[in-house]
C-alpha cells in the first residue's frame, strides 16, 4: 500500500471559546481522492486552510511528503495547490495574465505551453483574453481550477470545485481530475455538497460534524453502517444528529 502523502494527527483549531476543528486525524495516500463531507460550519474549510498553512493549528500536526508543514512551508507548498469557489483572482487582469503570474509564482518553466494545454483541457479558449472581472461564475470557477492544475501539484485541495459549473463542464472537470490522478498519481482532498459527485469522485470519505470526524470509510461502507441506500440520506441523518458530548458553539 502506498505511503501517506498527507498525515494529519489530532488537528485542533480553537478561535477563543469556539472549537472549529477538534482532534481530527486522517491520512491521504498517494493517488487517493479523499472526500471531506459535512454541513456548513463543520470545519472543512478551516481544515483545508490549516493544510495550506493559512491558519495555524492550536494543536496537532500536519505532515506532507513526510515533512511537517510548519517547518517546511515553502518546500511543501511548491508541490501543493488548491481551488475554491470562494477565492477570487486579480479582477483587472485577463485570464491568461492571471495564469502567467501563478506559473511564475511557482517557478514553472514552459509557461506558455502549460497555459495552452490547461486552457484547452478546460475549454477556456473563448475567454482566454477576457478580463477576469467580466467572467461568469462558471468561467471564474474554471479559471480557479486551471490555476490549481497549472502548477502540476502532487497534492490538490479542492473546496467545492464544481459548485457553479453547469453539468457538462462539471462532468469534464471531474473527468480531468480523474485523468490527471491516473496519469500523475495526484493526491486530492475534495469537498462538495453534491453527494452524487462525492460518491463518484472519492475513494474514501470523511464526515465532519462540528469539527469532529463522525464517520469514515468508502461511500459504500458508510451507507451500510447507517443503513441508507443514498449518501444524501446518510448526510441528513448525520447532520441532524448532534454527536454525543459535543459542545455547541
Amino acid at each position: 500500500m502506498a505511503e501517506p502523502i498527507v498525515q494529519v494527527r489530532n488537528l485542533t483549531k480553537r478561535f477563543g471559546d469556539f472549537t472549529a476543528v477538534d482532534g481530527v486525524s486522517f491520512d491521504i495516500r498517494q493517488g487517493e481522492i479523499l472526500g471531506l463531507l459535512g454541513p456548513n460550519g463543520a470545519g472543512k474549510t478551516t481544515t483545508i486552510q490549516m493544510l495550506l498553512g493559512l491558519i495555524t493549528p492550536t494543536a496537532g500536526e500536519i505532515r506532507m511528503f513526510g515533512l511537517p508543514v510548519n517547518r517546511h512551508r515553502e518546500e511543501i507548498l511548491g508541490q501543493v495547490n488548491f481551488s475554491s469557489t470562494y477565492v477570487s483572482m486579480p479582477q483587472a487582469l485577463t485570464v491568461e495574465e492571471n495564469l502567467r503570474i501563478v506559473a511564475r509564482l511557482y517557478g514553472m518553466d514552459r509557461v506558455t505551453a502549460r497555459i495552452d494545454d490547461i486552457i484547452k483541457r478546460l475549454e477556456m479558449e473563448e475567454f482566454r483574453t477576457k478580463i477576469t472581472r467580466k467572467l461568469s461564475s462558471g468561467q471564474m470557477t474554471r479559471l480557479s481550477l486551471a490555476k490549481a492544475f497549472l502548477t502540476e501539484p502532487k497534492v490538490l485541495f479542492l473546496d467545492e470545485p464544481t459548485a457553479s459549473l453547469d453539468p457538462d463542464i462539471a462532468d469534464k472537470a471531474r473527468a480531468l481530475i480523474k485523468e490527471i490522478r491516473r496519469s500523475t498519481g495526484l493526491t486530492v482532498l475534495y469537498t462538495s455538497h453534491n453527494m452524487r459527485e462525492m460518491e463518484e469522485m472519492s475513494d474514501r470519505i470523511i464526515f465532519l460534524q462540528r469539527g469532529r470526524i463522525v464517520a469514515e470509510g468508502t461511500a459504500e461502507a458508510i451507507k451500510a453502517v447507517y443503513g441508507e441506500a443514498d449518501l444524501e440520506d446518510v448526510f441528513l441523518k448525520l447532520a441532524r444528529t448532534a454527536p454525543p458530548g459535543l459542545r455547541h458553539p
Partner: protein
Amino acid sequence: MKLHRIAALLTRHLYLYKRSFPRVLEIIYWPFVDLVIWGFITLYLVQFKGALPNFVLFFLGALILWDVLFRAQQGITISFLEEIWSRNLMNLFASPLTTGEFLAATMILSVSKVLAVSCVTVLAAFAFYSFNVFVLGLSLIPFVLNLIVAGWCVGVLTTGLIMRYGQEVEVLAWGMVFLFQPISCVFYPMSVLPDWLQAIARLNPAAHVFEGMRAVITAGAFPVHELAWAVGLNAFYLTVLVFWFHMMFAACKDKGLLVRVGE
C-alpha cells in the same frame, strides 16, 4: 528569497497599471495637481517676501521630497490593498511565497512609483516655476533614499495594521503618513516647534532629511550629522518594523484573520 516569486508579484502590478487609467492618474495627475497648486501659492507668497530668502527653493523642494515619502509609503500599502480588494491573499500565501518576498516586491514597487511620480513633479516644477530640484546637488541622492526608507517604514506599519484590523483601518493607507507630517518639519524648520515636540521630531528620520535639505539650501554645506541621524533611525525602525510585521502575520494566521481580511 526567490527572485522569480518577487518578479511574479511585480508583473501582476505591471499588468494592473497597464490597464487601469485611475491608477495611472494616481501617478501622474495628483502629484502634478499638488505641485501646481502649491507652486502658485508659493509664487503668490513670494510677493510678500521679507526676511526669508530662497523661499521657492524651500517650499517646492520640500513639496517634491514630501511626495517621495508619501509615494514610497503608498507603494507598499496600496499593493497590499490591491490583493485584499481582489481577494487574492489566499492565492498568494497558499503558494510558496514568503512574507519577506512579499515585502521585497512591495518595496521595489514603491521605488518604481517614487521614480515615476518624481519624474512628473520634477518636470512640472521646472516647466511651471523654472525650479530645478537638482540645485540640491549630490546630497539629493541620500536625501531621497532616506525618504524612501522612511516611507517603507510607514508603509510596513500601515500594512501590518490593515492586515490585523481589516477594513476598519483601511483609511490609514491614505492618512497614516500625514500623522507624521507635523513632526517631519517639511515646510518649516524644527526650531519653530516647542521643545517637547522637537524632542519627538528628532526621532523622526524624515525630519532630519528636511532639516538637511534646508541646510544645503541656506549654507550650501552637506549636513553629515543630519544624514547620519536619518540613516541610523531608518535602519532601526525598518528592522523593528519588518520583525513586527512577521509577528503580526503569524498572529493573523493564528487568529484566522489572513483568510478573512477584507471581508
